[in-house]
């Protein structure tokens, strides 16, 4: 994530929503780390907040993050999905039904299969799908599962993802 954030220009307008599996005990950790990498605003999601351009949103620990039809965020404390809460699947599936083909889904390094189904939903709804190359990822499980399930449009090394996003942003 740090690598991608560092490479994005200050003019990057597309909102980015990030789900990272981490313990609830490490409050703010990711937000602080990422904010150091970029001049774009990095913030943890507030319940019912409207999705705005040019902001990198971080899912709060121990809640599922969902997207509503009116482009606001919802939180939930439902059961873990793929042993995870927040779950990538939950975010991707709700985002796919709201944004349809105006959505880019990206799966990076990770230890379980969370996100594979969600990425498939994004692809089926017409969105663009990108997975980090399992050969160069720290942990290959998540990218591998995603590739198998979703047949993404791009499989890229981590340092290639940011530039692709910047290119898309400039259209």
């Amino acid at each position, binding site marked *: 994530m740090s690598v991608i954030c560092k490479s994005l220009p200050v003019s990057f307008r597309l909102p980015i929503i990030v789900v990272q599996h981490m313990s609830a005990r490490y409050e703010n950790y990711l937000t602080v780390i990422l904010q150091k990498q970029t001049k774009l605003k990095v913030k943890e999601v507030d319940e*019912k907040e409207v999705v705005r351009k040019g902001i990198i949103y971080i899912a709060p620990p121990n*809640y599922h993050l969902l997207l509503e*039809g009116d482009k606001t965020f*919802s*939180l*939930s404390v439902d*059961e873990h999905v793929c042993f995870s809460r927040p779950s990538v699947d939950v975010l991707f599936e*709700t985002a796919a039904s709201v944004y349809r083909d105006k959505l880019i889904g990206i799966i990076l390094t990770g230890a379980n299969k969370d996100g594979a189904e969600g990425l498939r939903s994004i692809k089926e709804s017409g969105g663009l799908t990108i997975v980090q190359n399992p050969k160069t990822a720290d942990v290959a499980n998540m990218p591998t599962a995603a590739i198998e399930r979703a047949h993404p449009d791009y499989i890229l090394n981590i340092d290639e993802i940011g530039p692709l996003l910047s290119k898309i942003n400039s259209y």
Partner: protein
Amino acid sequence: MKGFPTKQENEQIEVQLLLEAIYQKHGYDFRNYSRAHIMRRLSHRLKVSGFKTYLEMIEAVLYNPSYFDHLLADLSINVTEMFRDPGFYKLLREKVVPVLRTYPYLKIWHAGCASGEEVYSMAILLKEEGLFDRTQIYATDFNQNVLQRAKDGIYASKFMKEYERNYEDAGGGKSLNDYFTTKYDSSIVDQSLKKNIVFSDHNLVLDGVFGEMNLIMCRNVLIYFDKQLQNRVVKLFLDSLSNGGTLCLGSKESLKFTHYANFFETFDEKQRIYRKNYQA
């Protein structure tokens, strides 16, 4: 003239009709719940039921008397634990209890108490702080089945280890097990903790003011409601609190986007504890 609706548009219409059918037939109002949340629950039940469309679900809701029980269970799951978010209970103990101590008699309302874990957590905390005997706790939920589980106070022993950790992190000085009797797979709450608790049926969406409370706990319930319903419920809480009364929300919930933020002062931002401003 509008183009022919897409599959997704049709589905949204069907879901709207389904929620209307549930309300009219069974009296439960999910029409203003977070739609994304409802859709996740409904699409799961759709698959499990083997239905292809929500039209079939409407039929089942209207004509199959036992079908709605499954749906109701799906739509009102609330995952909870003892001393959930220990930091909250720790702050409650350290900062709110001193305020509560100034009252000779206390009324506390757990709104949306689900299976009761947080109610018994509060009871234990009050007992340890010497406030239990002067407190009447009201624990309410709209789901009768889950309310019965709360009344029973029987929980799976496999969770007790995690609950014990939560209890310690929340500033508990004894052992959580002191308050339970464990038999095989089940841990049962001590009868003594149930003494000052009244469990009752109350629906936050439909029902009215619940009496003058010193403290209202409603944690991780509002997140399931849309903005309009959140406003309704916050107003309900405002009217149910005595002056200076305390409202406790879930760790990511806030009064910020509601119409009633100005009627409260923020007692603790991080733990989402608010106090009702004094009104003439």
